[in-house]
C-alpha cells in the first residue's frame, strides 16, 4: 500500500519503553530501534547460547544441566496454564530417533493480552535465543514460531530477525561451529482465537482448520506431523537466556517460591496508563495498579479480570489483597492466565461486560464439541436478553446450569474459558444480574 499511515501506528513508548518496569529482564534497555542482532548482543544477547555450546572455551553444558537450570528457576508457562517449563522439557523423548519439533506459541489473542507483541517487535532475538537453547536441551533441530495473524508487522519483524541470526551462524547447521543445528521459521495465523490452544495451533500449522485434538496423546509424544513436539509461549522462551546466564536460583529469587522470575502484565481497560509492565512475580496488585497510573480519571475500582478474559472476575476488595503470581490469584478464586489485567471502574456494568465476552466465545468456538458449540451461543443469548431488559426469572439459574454443563465436557479449554467468566460474574456480581432481570434496567446506566 502506497498510503503512509505510520503516523497512526504505535511507537511502543506507552506500552513498552517507559521507566515503570521493576527489575526488567525481557524489556530491559529497549527503545524501539535497538531490536537488531548487534543491539541484542550489546545487551548480553546470545551469551547464554554460547555458554551452553561451550564455544568460548568453557565446557559445554549437557542437556540435563540446561533442563536442571530451567527446573530450578521455577519458570512456569507464561501463556496461561502456568505449567512448570523445565518439567515440560523433561517430557520430551530425547532418544527418539526421528524428527522432533519445537513450537513457539505467539498466537496472542486472549482479550487483554499484548505483551508478546512487544517482545517480538522490540526484542525478537531474545525469543530466537531462548528457542535455540530449548532446542539444544531437547535435541530438536526444527522449530516454528506461530505468530498471531493480526500482527503482521510483527511477523515481518521476526522474519527479519531470523535472517540476521542465520547470517551470523546463530541459527542453521552447526550453530557457531558446534554440533547443534536448529532451523527456525515463522508462521502466521489469520484470525482464530482457538489456535492459541496448543493442539489447535498444531493443526493450523499443518495447514488445516484449527480444531483441537484429544489429549492424550500429548504433543510430547504426538505433536506436529505426529512427531514429538514441545510448545511454549513467547514470554516463556524469552525468559530462558537470562536463566542460563544468571542461573536458575537467581531467577527464582527474583520472584517468590514456586513463582520464579519476572512477569509481564498487560494493564488494560480503565487505567490511566495502559501498557505492559514487567515486574517480579509476587508484586502486590496495588503496586501494579499504581505503576499504571491508577484507575482512570480517579474513579473507584470496581472489578478486575486478572488473567485475560477467560479468568473469573474478582471484585476490587479481593483483588487489592492479591499479589501478582500464580498462587495468590488462584487462592483468590481466579487465575493469573496470560497476565492480562482488565481493570473496570465503578461505572462499568457487569452484565454488559459479560455480554461482550459471551459473544466472543460463541464467535470463536470451533464447533467441534456440542457443549461448547451450543453452550457458548446459549450463554450469549441469555446474557444478551438479561442485558436488554428481557431477562426472565429463571435465567440466572439457567446461566449457572449451562455454564456448569460446559465445564469439563469439551476437548479443549475454550469451553471452560467461556464458562468461567459467567460463573465468576454470577458469583461476585449476582445482584446486578438480579437487578437487570427484576427492573429491566441497569444499576450503572451510564456505561456505554
Amino acid at each position, binding site marked *: *500500500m*502506497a*498510503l503512509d*499511515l505510520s503516523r*497512526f*501506528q*504505535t511507537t511502543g513508548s*506507552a*506500552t513498552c519503553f517507559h521507566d515503570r518496569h521493576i527489575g526488567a529482564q525481557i524489556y530491559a534497555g529497549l527503545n524501539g530501534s535497538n531490536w537488531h542482532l548487534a543491539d541484542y548482543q550489546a545487551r548480553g544477547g546470545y551469551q547464554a547460547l554460547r555458554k551452553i555450546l561451550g564455544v568460548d572455551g568453557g565446557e559445554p553444558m549437557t542437556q540435563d544441566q540446561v533442563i536442571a537450570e530451567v527446573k530450578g528457576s521455577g519458570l512456569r508457562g507464561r501463556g496461561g496454564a502456568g505449567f512448570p517449563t523445565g518439567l515440560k522439557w523433561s517430557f520430551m523423548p530425547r532418544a527418539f530417533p526421528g*524428527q522432533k519439533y519445537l513450537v513457539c506459541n505467539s498466537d*496472542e*489473542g*486472549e*482479550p*487483554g*493480552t*499484548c505483551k*508478546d*507483541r512487544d517482545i517480538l517487535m522490540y526484542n525478537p532475538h531474545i525469543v530466537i535465543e531462548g528457542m535455540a537453547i530449548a532446542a539444544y536441551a531437547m535435541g530438536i533441530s526444527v522449530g*516454528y514460531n506461530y505468530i*498471531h*495473524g*493480526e*500482527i*503482521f*508487522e510483527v511477523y515481518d519483524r521476526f522474519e527479519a530477525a531470523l535472517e540476521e541470526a542465520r547470517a551470523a551462524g546463530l541459527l542453521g547447521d552447526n550453530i557457531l561451529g558446534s554440533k547443534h543445528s536448529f532451523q527456525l521459521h515463522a*508462521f*502466521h*495465523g*489469520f*484470525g*482464530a*482465537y482457538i489456535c492459541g490452544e496448543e493442539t489447535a495451533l498444531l493443526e*493450523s*500449522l*499443518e*495447514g*488445516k*482448520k*484449527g480444531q483441537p485434538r484429544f489429549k492424550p496423546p500429548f504433543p510430547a509424544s504426538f505433536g506436529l*506431523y505426529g512427531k514429538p513436539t514441545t510448545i511454549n509461549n513467547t514470554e516463556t522462551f524469552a525468559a530462558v537466556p537470562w536463566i542460563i546466564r544468571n542461573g536458575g536460583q537467581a531467577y527464582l529469587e527474583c520472584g517468590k517460591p514456586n513463582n520464579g522470575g519476572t512477569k509481564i502484565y*498487560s*494493564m*488494560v*481497560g*480503565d487505567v490511566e496508563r*495502559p501498557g*505492559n509492565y514487567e515486574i517480579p512475580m509476587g508484586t502486590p496488585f496495588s503496586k501494579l495498579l499504581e505503576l499504571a497510573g491508577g484507575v482512570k480519571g480517579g474513579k473507584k475500582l470496581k472489578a478486575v479480570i486478572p488473567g485475560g*478474559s477467560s479468568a473469573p472476575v474478582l471484585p476490587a476488595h479481593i483483588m487489592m489483597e492479591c499479589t501478582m503470581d500464580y498462587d495468590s490469584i488462584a487462592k483468590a478464586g481466579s487465575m493469573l492466565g496470560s497476565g*492480562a489485567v*482488565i*481493570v473496570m471502574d465503578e461505572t*462499568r456494568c457487569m452484565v454488559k*461486560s459479560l455480554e*461482550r*465476552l459471551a459473544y*466472543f466465545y460463541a464467535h*470463536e468456538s*470451533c464447533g467441534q464439541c456440542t457443549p461448547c458449540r451450543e453452550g457458548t451461543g446459549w450463554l450469549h443469548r441469555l446474557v444478551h436478553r438479561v442485558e436488554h431488559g428481557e431477562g426472565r426469572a429463571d435465567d440466572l439459574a439457567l446461566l449457572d446450569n449451562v455454564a456448569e454443563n460446559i465445564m469439563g465436557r469439551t476437548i479443549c479449554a475454550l469451553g471452560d474459558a467461556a464458562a468461567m467468566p459467567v460463573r465468576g460474574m454470577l458469583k461476585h456480581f449476582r445482584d446486578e444480574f438480579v437487578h437487570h432481570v427484576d427492573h429491566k434496567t441497569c444499576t450503572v446506566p451510564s456505561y*456505554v
Partner: protein
Amino acid sequence: MMTDTVTHQTPPVAPLSEATQARFAREVAKYPKDQAQSAVMACLSIVQQEQGWVSTEAEAAIAAYLGMPAMAVHEVTTFYNMYNQQPVGKFKLNVCTNLPCQLRNGQGALEHLCKSLNVEDGGTTADGLFTVAKCECLGACADAPVMLVNDRQMLSYMSNDKLDEMLALMRAEAGKAA
C-alpha cells in the same frame, strides 16, 4: 430412490503469476517436503493481498500448487476470520470491540466509522472504497481503540479525530489513483 442430480464441476484454476509462485515457494520451503500443505494459510493470505479476496479459482490454484484437495483449502478459508470470501472495499477496516477495547471506546470507534461512511457493521460503501467491520482481539489491547487496515497494518489510539484524518487520507489516495 433419489438420484444424485448435482453435477460436481471442477472449478477453473486461475493461473498464478511467477511473482506469486516465488512467494509461495518461499513459504513452502519452510516445511518438510511432504508437508507443503502447511503453507496453505500463507498462500491464501498472499492471494488475498494481491487480489483483495479469495475466490474459488484462487483456492483451486493454491490446491494445485500445494498438491491438496481444493475442499481442504476451502475449509481453511472458511475457518479463519480474516480471509475475505467475497470482494471487499479498497480499504478493509477492522475495529476491535472486545471487552478491553470496549472499555476504551472501541465500540465508539466502530460506530464513528460506520456513521461517517454511512455503512452498517460489516458493510461496504457504495463507491467500493471502504469495508468496515468489528473484529475480535487484535492483541493490542493497551493501544485501544485499535484497528487493522487491509489485514496487515495496525493503527493504534484511534480517536474520532484520528479516524476522520485517516479517512481523509484514504479518500485522497483513492482520488489520486482514479
